[in-house]
């Protein structure tokens, strides 16, 4: 084997009282695609942040090209030939695509001024290869999460690094975009660039990686390669035991009456004449490609945006929420797509984050509007147990949780409320396989107790596993309805690519 590019030995790191890493080791050879897996909170991102010079290890040693290195700052990490795509998206909202791609990258100049033309010439082919469809001079404000991911990936490529680290790069990507990314990763590998690839999607790991390190509770517990690199072994190493893989369990159940109905809901250009019915006790999935308009649809249902035309009803009565507050009042809940920006109060405790949608439940008395902190803490404790949120206590700030655990907090907020309608936008993004199964079980359980659940997911396997019925959206319209045995990965993917205009006519005919 060639000499490793990177060697990390016995890295340990504590945050306050949390021992995030207790001694992990890992090495990567040039040209290798090295997988890194582990449950939420296992310490993967912390390890990456140490490599990136964002955190400093308490103990351990890092060697690059055989030389011991103190990384210290992100700039140093870049100088040493490493490039990172972190779990948190790094972009500046006020800047355009090209400026975001070039963030922190040395730029060509003419007479001391930035030579954007020359830069654009260099970047354009890379952007195309990554699959950025927006013009380089477009602002990033309107772009989807996926496109912003592509920008981050593009940045790593522009730097011409010797090691590219990707922390859950496909969490926000649709299947086609992910495929493109895999091709790029393989290209990079062929040209001698090492890739450290973190994901909760084991299929990806198995098809891409030649070697996989597994972290559990801050320790490296296994390194699998060649013959040992198999799904069951991987799962066992991650959770420390066997797990029943989540399967489609949805039996054909009688569903309840219509809870929510939308008629010809339109908010151009993202949502165009969407009609749907949501029944009590069903899990309705909305599938489609990224950018199909699903998030916008959810926002309309939840009163976060207002429709330009169309009507809605809720339990038979006209429903036109002027704000999310009105929607919540009427009995809706929403778990938004972007948990850090749209769902969480990062500096506040878990209890605060869970309590904020349940304030009526934590008040001492109707006429004594004081908080019952005991009630809040025990409520938080209950939710944390039922979702297995990994944290020291309910008073831990949410910002210090791992990505997957943050997602659980965002979902947990609504479970105590038992809303009539719960909308989940990408509910298991960034969640480990164990927790994913738990979240799915919880969603089913809520539906069985009569709640109407709407799930948006870009993960092709998730909807068939979870839903009774799936609507597929494309370019702002609902293009197909699948139900019962007709719900399958293949059917969803097919429908996603259908020409919506053609289908509309189909429908009318």
């Amino acid at each position, binding site marked *: 084997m060639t000499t490793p590019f990177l060697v990390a030995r016995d890295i340990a790191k*504590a*945050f*306050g009282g949390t021992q995030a890493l207790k001694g992990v080791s890992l090495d990567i050879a040039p040209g290798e695609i090295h997988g890194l897996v582990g449950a939420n909170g296992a310490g993967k991102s912390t390890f990456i942040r140490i490599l990136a010079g964002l*955190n*400093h290890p*308490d*103990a351990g040693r890092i060697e690059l090209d055989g030389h*011991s*290195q*103190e990384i*210290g700052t992100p700039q140093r990490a870049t100088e040493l030939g490493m490039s990172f795509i972190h779990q948190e998206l790094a972009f500046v909202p006020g800047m355009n695509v090209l400026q975001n791609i070039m963030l922190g990258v040395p730029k060509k100049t003419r007479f001391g001024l930035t030579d954007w033309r020359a830069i654009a010439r260099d970047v354009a082919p890379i952007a195309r290869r990554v699959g950025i469809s927006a013009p380089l001079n477009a602002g990033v404000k309107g772009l989807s999460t996926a496109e912003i991911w592509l920008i981050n990936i593009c940045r790593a490529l522009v730097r011409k690094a010797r090691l590219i680290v990707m922390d859950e790069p496909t969490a926000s990507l649709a299947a086609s975009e992910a495929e493109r990314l895999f091709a790029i990763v393989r290209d990079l590998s062929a040209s001698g660039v090492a890739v450290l690839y973190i994901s909760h999607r084991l299929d990806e790991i198995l098809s891409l990686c030649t070697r996989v390190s597994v972290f559990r509770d801050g320790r490296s517990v296994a390194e699998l390669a060649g013959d040992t690199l198999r799904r069951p072994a991987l799962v066992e190493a991650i959770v420390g035991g066997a797990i029943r893989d989540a399967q489609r369990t949805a039996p054909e159940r009688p569903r309840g009456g219509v809870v929510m109905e939308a008629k010809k809901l339109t908010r151009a250009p993202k949502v165009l004449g969407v009609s749907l019915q949501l029944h009590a006790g069903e899990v309705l999935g909305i599938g489609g490609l990224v950018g199909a308009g699903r998030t916008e649809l959810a926002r309309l249902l*939840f009163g*976060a945006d207002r429709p330009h035309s169309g009507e809605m009803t809720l339990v038979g009565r006209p429903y036109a929420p002027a*704000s*999310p*507050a009105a*929607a*919540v*009042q009427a009995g809706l809940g*929403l778990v*938004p797509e972007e948990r850090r*920006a*749209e*769902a*969480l*109060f*990062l*500096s*506040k405790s878990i209890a*605060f984050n869970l*309590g*904020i*949608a349940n*304030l*009526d439940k*934590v*008040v001492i008395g109707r006429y004594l*509007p*004081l*908080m019952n*902190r005991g009630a809040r803490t025990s409520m938080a404790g209950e939710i944390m147990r039922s979702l297995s949120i990994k944290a020291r206590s309910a008073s831990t700030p949410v910002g210090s949780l791992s990505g997957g655990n943050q997602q659980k907090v965002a979902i947990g*907020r609504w479970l105590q409320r038992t809303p009539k309608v719960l909308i989940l936008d990408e509910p298991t993004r960034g969640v480990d396989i164990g927790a994913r199964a738990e979240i799915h079980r919880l969603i089913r359980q809520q539906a069985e107790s009569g709640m109407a659940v709407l799930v948006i997911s870009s993960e092709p396997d998730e909807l068939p596993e979870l839903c009774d019925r799936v609507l597929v959206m494309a370019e702002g319209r609902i293009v197909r309805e699948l139900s019962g045995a007709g719900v399958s990965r293949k059917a969803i993917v097919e429908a996603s690519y259908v020409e919506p205009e053609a289908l509309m006519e189909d429908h009318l005919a």
Partner: protein
Amino acid sequence: MSDIAISARRLSPSTKAALGIFARYGTIIGLLAMIVTFSILSPGAFPTVGNFTNVLNQASLAMIIAGGLTLAVVVGELDLSIGFAASLHGILITGLVVHDKLPIPLAVIIVIALGAVIGLVNGFIVTKVKVNSVIATLGVGTILTGLAFAYSAGVPIVAGVPEAFLQLSLGRWLFGIPNNIIVMIVVLGGLWVLVERTPLGQEIQAVGGNAVAARLAGVNVDRIKILGFVISGMCAALTGILLASRLGSGTASAADSYLLTAFAAVFLGSATLRDGEFHVLGTLVGALIIAFGFNGLNIFGAPTFSQYVLQGAILIIAVGMASLGRSLAER
């Protein structure tokens, strides 16, 4: 060399724990250290019940206005109108009592209601017209200065201020404790309970923490922001009233300088207990640091210029201790 660098970065857990204490209590430790230092430097004059009462009495007005400002910053906005507003309120209450011969309680209620209205206007401009709060409140403050002029023609209202009005601020109606202190404790206590112990307070904190998330969690963000401005406006009114009573006159721009003091207290306080978050208790600590710093330096008899230098240093050191502790502990 790089080994030394590594070891310098690695702190033992016990060091980290100690630094963690500094991070939480740095400003309070700073306050206590300052009080101890001044007590040693001026043992006869500084650490006496009389002096502490005086400092508190004096600082009460700044604390009340700073407490109100805290609510505005907790919901994520700045309120630069408070000083100008308090000046206007001071003139107005004197006018209502002296010229219009209104009963004092009625006059107080009217003025505090006006404070609420000003807050409402600020809140409306910020949330509905969507003007940045710096510009909105600076603009409103400038307008209020104009109104103060218009009401008084710039002339302080002095003659015939009834003794009962002066007693609002000068009296000691309960156990010989100066009224200002009692009002301050009631107001700050009330604000603390509101923010920390009521469901409404949770919404207030949520809006300040992440307005987008608060909206999607079903909080009426605009209403909460407006509430923050209204409370800020009411506290400014109360300060204006007490100041007019203390001075025995209504004078345009008498309270303008509270703006900077209130900001210093609020931002000092944000380094207390919780990193970078604004909260009522922190503001109280911040205001105490400023008040005791000023008083102690004076009693010690430092020349004016070094008083400024030391005051500036106290601000930075009080926060710096907390912040450095935090960032070292978190390395």
